[in-house]
C-alpha cells in the first residue's frame, strides 16, 4: 500500500497532489491518502476520484495552519499504524519539506523530485538535479520508501471512485509547534499585471546595461498589456526587484509571448521560461544559448531594436 500526502490550502487541493496520487496509483492498486488538518476533509471527493481508497484526516486543535513539523509527526503516527511500503508527496516546496520531516523523524533516506520510482529491495528511483537538467539514478536502502514526485513527470488522471474518510487525532509534542504562524498578507508588490498571469513578458538581462535601460522595456510591455521580467544578473545588480526575476530561483512563467532581451539563456533562466508559448530573442550574439530554446530571434542591439519595435507596434495599431 502506498500513502500519499495530499497538500491543501484551507481545504483547496494542491493540483500537484493529484499528480502524486496518479504516480502512486501506477505503482500500486492500493493507494491511501492523508491530509493534515480538519479542513482537509473537503478534498475527499477529489482524492477518491484520483484513486485513493481511504482518506486519513489528521486532526488536532493546533493544526489550523501549515505547520510542517507537525505534518511530519502526523505522517509518522499514521505510518506506524498502517505500515505502507512507500510515502509519496508532490515535488513542491511544501511536499518536499513535509516529507523531509517524516524522514528526519524516522532517520530514513528521502528521494526528492523523482521522475521514476520502482518499489523493491532496494527501491530504485530517478530524480531531478540542477533544475531537471540532469537526472540521477539512485538506490534507496530502506524498507519504507519516502519520495516526492517531480511535478511535470506525470499528468493527473482521474479514475473515478470514492475515498472512505477516517479521522485520527495527532499527538503533538511541544517541539512540533515551536514555529508559530502569525498570518498572511497580500503580496508586497504593487499593482499591475503579475508575472504568472501575464500574457506578454518583456524580459531584460545584463545586456540592458543598467536600471535606466529598462524604460524602453517597460514602455513596450505596457503597450502589449504585459509586464517586465528579468534575469538574475539584473536582480543581483539591484537594477530590478527580485519579484520580477524569471528562473529556477525566481518565478516560473508561461506567457503567450516571452521576449528575451539581452539574456544569454543560462539553464537556470530557461528553467523559468521554457513553458512560454512563443519565445522571441533580441541578442547581439547569434551564438547565445537562448537561441536554442527560442522560436524567433533578431540579432542586434536591443537599445535600437526595442524602440523600433515599439514604434512599429504603435503604427500597426494605427
Amino acid at each position: 500500500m502506498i500513502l500519499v500526502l495530499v497538500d491543501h490550502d484551507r481545504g483547496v487541493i494542491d493540483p500537484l497532489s493529484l499528480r502524486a496520487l496518479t504516480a502512486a496509483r501506477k505503482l500500486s492498486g492500493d493507494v491511501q491518502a492523508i491530509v493534515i488538518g480538519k479542513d482537509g476533509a473537503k478534498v475527499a471527493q477529489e482524492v477518491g476520484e484520483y484513486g485513493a481508497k481511504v482518506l486519513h484526516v489528521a486532526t488536532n486543535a493546533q493544526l489550523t495552519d501549515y505547520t510542517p513539523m507537525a505534518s511530519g509527526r502526523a505522517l509518522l503516527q499514521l505510518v506506524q499504524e498502517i505500515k505502507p511500503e512507500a510515502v509519496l508527496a508532490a515535488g513542491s516546496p511544501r511536499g518536499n519539506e513535509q516529507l523531509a520531516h517524516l524522514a528526519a523523524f524516522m532517520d530514513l533516506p528521502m528521494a526528492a523530485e523523482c521522475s521514476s520510482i520502482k518499489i523493491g529491495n532496494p527501491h530504485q528511483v530517478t530524480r531531478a538535479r540542477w533544475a531537471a537538467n540532469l537526472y540521477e539514478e539512485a538506490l534507496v536502502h530502506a524498507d519504507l520508501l519516502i519520495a516526492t514526485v517531480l511535478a511535470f513527470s506525470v499528468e493527473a488522471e482521474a479514475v473515478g471512485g470514492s475515498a472512505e474518510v477516517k479521522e485520527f487525532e495527532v499527538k503533538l509534542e511541544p517541539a512540533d509547534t515551536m514555529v508559530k504562524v502569525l498570518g498572511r498578507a497580500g503580496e508586497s508588490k504593487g499593482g499591475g499585471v503579475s508575472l504568472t498571469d501575464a500574457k506578454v513578458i518583456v524580459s531584460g538581462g545584463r545586456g540592458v546595461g543598467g536600471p535606466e535601460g529598462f524604460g524602453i522595456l517597460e514602455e513596450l510591455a505596457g503597450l502589449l498589456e504585459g509586464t517586465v521580467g528579468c534575469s538574475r544578473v539584473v536582480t543581483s545588480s539591484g537594477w530590478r526587484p527580485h519579484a520580477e526575476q524569471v528562473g529556477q530561483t525566481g518565478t516560473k512563467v508561461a506567457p503567450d509571448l516571452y521576449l528575451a532581451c539581452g539574456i544569454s539563456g543560462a539553464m537556470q533562466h530557461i528553467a523559468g521560461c521554457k513553458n512560454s508559448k512563443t519565445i522571441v530573442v533580441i541578442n547581439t550574439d547569434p551564438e547565445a544559448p537562448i537561441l536554442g530554446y527560442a522560436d524567433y530571434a533578431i540579432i542586434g542591439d536591443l537599445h535600437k531594436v526595442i524602440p523600433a519595435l515599439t514604434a512599429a507596434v504603435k503604427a500597426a495599431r494605427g
Partner: protein
Amino acid sequence: MDVLVCLKRVPIAGGTFLLTPDNRNIETKHLGFGVSPHEENAVEAGVQLVEQMGGSLTLLTLGPTDSEEQLRAQLAIGASRAILLETDGEDWDPQATAAALVDAINAEETKFDLILFGAESADSAGYQIHVRVAHALNRPIITNVKAMTIADGIAKCERVVGSERELYEAPLPAIVTVRDGLNIPRYPSVPGRIQSRKKPLDIKKAEPRVPKLEKLQLTVAPSNSKGAEILGEGEAAVPALIEVLKKIGILA
C-alpha cells in the same frame, strides 16, 4: 548574536552539462566553482545581522579540500571564521552530510543563536539537510524565507505562497533556510579579500558513511532545443517580428 551558515561548493554550470566518463559526476575541468545563490543570500544575511547586533559569523561546509576556495570567498564578505569538513571529493548522501554537520556543530563551544541554510543545494537539490539538522539539534526551523527580522530572541520570517506572504515566528536558537531574493549579496572589497586569507579556517577530516540514498549514475536531460528562426539583423528585422506577433495573436 552568533550565526552559522552552512554552504556547499558547486560548479558554476552554464548552458549544458558534460559528464565524467563513468557518468557519476559533472565534468568540471572547464568550469569554475561557487556556492548556490540561496547560500550567498544566507551569508549576506549573516553578515548584516552581525553588523547590526554584534557577535560572530561562522561558515561550515562539508566537501573536498578545494572548498577552501568558496569559504575564503565568503570570508571576504565578512564572516569571522570557517570550518571545512574534508571529504574524499565524493558527494555524500543527505543523511551522512547532515550527521557530519550536526557533529561539527555540537563540537563547537559557540552555541549558535541562528543557523542559516540555503533552501536547497544547487547541484543535488535534496531539500532536506536543514530539516535533518533541525531535528538532531531539536530546534525550530522555518524554510524558504524571503524576509527576516531578528529581535528580542525571536526570528520573524516571511515566505511567499502564491500571491500571498505567510508570516512565521520562532524563538532562538532557530534554523532558517533562505531563498534568492532575501537580499542582494555584496561583492567582497579588496581589504576584505586580503583579510580573508588570514581568517581562521579549521579543517577536520569527516568519516564517510555507507549511503542510504546511493547515487548510481547521472544522465543529461535530452535538450528540448528547437533552434530559433532568425528574423534578421537589427531594426531591419522589426517588420518580420510584427508579422510574427500578428500570427501568434498578440497584434490584431
